[in-house]
């Protein structure tokens, strides 16, 4: 009987579709029959029962037990569904995440349901934009009314469109789905469609009839490019001042109506608000983020990934990182380098700086791949504090490429491990990261003091991801080398590195530029060392965090480094030294210095742009010696084999002042002092 009724409805839909405008009765009788519902729930019993109930309501049901699958369905058939019903607790993806995705990508009404009727959960559903929240067991009466949400959404959209009715209506964002999809979709795809139909049926307004008949707007699909354009426009205007009309003008996309922009802006604002409110759930977010990133993305998938990233790191990643991530994610999906820039701007919440927009396009791609790796590699190591520092530093790094940012985000995660992060370090990290991806020249300038710390952070990130992303990082070899140097220094010691980041800052001005250039020459060969170095650094960072423990560990690492590196102290040492001097926690610096030295040596002689660097290694070592025995001891192990290393060591040792009880940890006596070539 049900089937027969449904079929009757369907058969009627064809004539009614054409006549629907005039005779609202014909269609309204059938509506909401034929509503296309997508049900997502991991509980097979619930799924079965819901399907049965929905069929009883004369709806068209598609069920799936996995959120990823549901998203695929939705993406494949953008206008194939009218409404989505989703469970809250699902193993593969949180119901709220799915809710966000659907809302942003397809702008469909989503109903949440759960056996959990706690107020908090329900509130969460509402804040995430669910149109309704059902408590299990779901009764058929509740399902009978879900069509109201579809109508409501269509009505709002339609009304907006009516007001803004323009000549071009190709890209209307229409949520309205025909009551009977079978018939409607065929005619709807052409134009008028559900929008008009719904209006007629539900509202029965004459004016709408005319409008709808002339409306031939397919749903607006917010592709990645479109969204990036949107974000650019919003950032340009400023989040507070962004009004749909102006955004529309800025975007200058034919066929886009103010309504489309308005609804998208609303969603975007909601999303941003949610992001800013997320500060404690890094892990969860990260995890959630990782999940979606893995999923096959549609046009907006990259954005979703970005969102997730943003969500995960909203409180923690510096705006730049987020932007980079976003850009990376977008770039990944679309391979468009310019796009990420707008995203970066988006982070108004994080007071993004415009310079960040200058991401290298190439780096974007690399960053994307790298980023993904990074993201996965560093799920839950972010700490708000560190990120905050990163944030500050990140801001200064306008032109850090995505990679850099991703790295910084990564490093941010590293930093989180070490609560002692200092503002400088993040900058350094970022600088490192920026070095990696951006051109040396650009790096030199913007990075200067600011960039350095930031690069340091990214380096950390880079190191973490070393295996996967190294290749991509190597592209800007010069930058990479430089950043590597920085990174190796800092990454290991999340916080100690931070302090060490002073080095890059010091050396940055002149050094960076030069180093970068020199590094460019030696990108490839250096890379492998870099890898090992990174690994070592990574280990080191872990140890550094403990400081005392790290020192011993570092020693071992240093020895490893020595084997892999054949670098002479050169400028790096100097650079490191200068920065070390400045930084309070010099422990990491020695390491970094070594890396610098390594990089530098390979690159050739790098003039000492910085004043501090002018000191010869010998001087440095001497100075170092004077300052700290234990540091030197540490350095000794680090550079026993290489002269440069010794110098670095000495310099590093100096840096280690801040670390304190290093000597005992190191386990070596003033060996290095003797070895230091003075």
């Amino acid at each position, binding site marked *: 009987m049900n089937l027969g009724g449904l079929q009757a409805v369907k058969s009627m839909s064809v004539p009614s579709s054409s006549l629907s405008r005039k005779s609202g009765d014909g269609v309204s009788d059938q509506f909401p029959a034929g509503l296309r519902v997508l049900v997502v729930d991991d509980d097979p*019993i619930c799924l*079965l029962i819901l399907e049965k109930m929905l069929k009883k309501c004369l709806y068209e049901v598609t069920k799936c037990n996995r959120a990823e699958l549901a998203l695929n369905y939705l993406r494949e058939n953008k206008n194939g569904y009218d409404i989505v019903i989703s469970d809250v*607790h699902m193993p593969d993806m949180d119901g709220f995440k799915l809710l966000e995705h659907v809302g942003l990508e397809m702008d469909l009404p989503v109903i949440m349901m759960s056996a959990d009727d706690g107020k908090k959960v329900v509130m969460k559903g509402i804040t995430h934009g669910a149109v309704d929240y059902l408590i299990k067991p779901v009764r058929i009466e509740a399902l009978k009314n879900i069509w109201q949400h579809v109508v409501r959404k269509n009505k709002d959209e339609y009304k907006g469109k009516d007001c803004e009715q323009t000549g071009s209506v190709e890209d209307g964002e229409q949520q309205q789905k025909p009551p009977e999809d079978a018939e409607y979709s065929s005619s709807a795809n052409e134009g008028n469609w559900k929008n008009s139909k719904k209006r007629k049926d539900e509202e029965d307004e004459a004016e709408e009839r005319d409008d709808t008949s002339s409306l031939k707007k397919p749903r607006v699909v917010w592709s990645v490019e479109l969204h990036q354009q949107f974000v650019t426009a919003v950032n340009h205007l400023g989040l507070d001042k962004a009004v749909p009309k102006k955004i529309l003008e800025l975007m200058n996309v034919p066929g886009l109506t103010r309504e489309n922009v308005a609804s998208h802006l609303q969603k975007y604002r909601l999303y941003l608000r949610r992001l800013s409110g997320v500060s404690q759930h890094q892990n969860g977010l990260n995890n959630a983020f990782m999940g979606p990133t893995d999923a096959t993305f549609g046009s907006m998938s990259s954005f979703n990934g970005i969102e997730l990233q943003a969500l995960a790191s909203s409180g923690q990643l510096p705006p730049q990182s987020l932007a980079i991530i976003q850009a990376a994610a977008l770039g990944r999906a679309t391979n468009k380098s310019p796009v990420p820039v707008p995203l970066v701007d988006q982070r108004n919440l994080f007071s993004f700086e415009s310079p960040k927009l200058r991401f290298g396009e190439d780096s974007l791609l690399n960053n994307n791949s790298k980023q993904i790796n990074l993201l996965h590699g560093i799920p839950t190591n972010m700490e708000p504090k560190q990120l905050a520092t990163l944030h500050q530093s990140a801001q200064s790094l306008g032109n850090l490429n995505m990679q850099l940012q991703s790295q910084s985000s990564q490093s941010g995660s590293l930093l989180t491990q070490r609560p002692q992060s200092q503002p400088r370090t993040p900058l350094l990290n970022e600088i490192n990261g920026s070095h990696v991806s951006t051109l040396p020249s650009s790096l030199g300038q913007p990075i200067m003091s600011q960039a350095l710390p930031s690069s340091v952070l990214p380096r950390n990130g880079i190191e973490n991801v070393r295996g996967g992303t190294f290749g991509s990082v190597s592209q800007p070899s010069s930058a990479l080398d430089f950043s590597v140097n920085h990174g190796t220094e800092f990454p290991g010691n999340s916080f100690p590195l931070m302090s060490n980041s002073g080095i890059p800052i010091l050396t940055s001005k002149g050094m960076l530029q030069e180093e970068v250039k020199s590094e460019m020459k030696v990108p490839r060969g250096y890379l492998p060392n870099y890898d090992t170095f990174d690994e070592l650094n990574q280990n080191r960072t872990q140890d550094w965090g403990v400081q005392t423990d790290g020192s011993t560990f570092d020693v071992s690492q240093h020895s490893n480094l020595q084997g892999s590196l054949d670098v002479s102290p050169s400028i790096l040492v100097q650079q490191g030294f200068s920065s070390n001097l400045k930084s309070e926690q010099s422990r990491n610096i020695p390491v970094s210095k070594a890396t610098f030295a390594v990089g530098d040596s390979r690159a050739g002689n790098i003039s000492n742009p910085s004043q501090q660097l002018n000191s010869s290694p010998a001087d440095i070592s001497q100075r170092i010696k004077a300052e700290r025995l234990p540091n030197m001891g540490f350095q000794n192990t680090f550079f026993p084999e290489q002269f440069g290393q010794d110098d670095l060591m000495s310099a590093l040792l100096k840096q280690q002042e801040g670390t304190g009880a290093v000597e005992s940890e190191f386990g070596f006596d003033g060996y290095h002092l003797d070895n230091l070539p003075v």
Partner: protein
Amino acid sequence: MEIVGQLQKQYVDFTTCLFREGYLDDQYVQLQKLQDESNPEFVVEVVSIFFEDSEKLLNDMACSLSVSISLPWVLFCVPDLLIDFNFFSFFLILFQLYSQQQVVDFKKVDGYVHQFKGSSSSVGAQRVKNACAAFRNFCEDKNLDG
């Protein structure tokens, strides 16, 4: 067919009894309503799936609770109303067993119980659902004894 009539009567009696005792609730009635000629075995299907799923859930719960319980006898349950009763009693036994465990991952168990609660409520197993609610409270309180 006498036998069929008798079985049907038995079925009705049993369900009435279960309703009266609170094992089943209105949701079960809804399930029955959903069944029609197009899907004559609907209720049977749903309840069978419920049992399979519940068995798996209970197993997972048992593992989380460090309880090794084999539920082979559940498999023997025929998908009819009798199962509800047996299943519930089994559930009670499990409760007692759980209380003996010391190392418990409450969060995980809570997750399982939540899912079980959803399933049972969808099916109409009222007492099971209530037991789940109580269980969840215990989990939140981290009350092993509960």
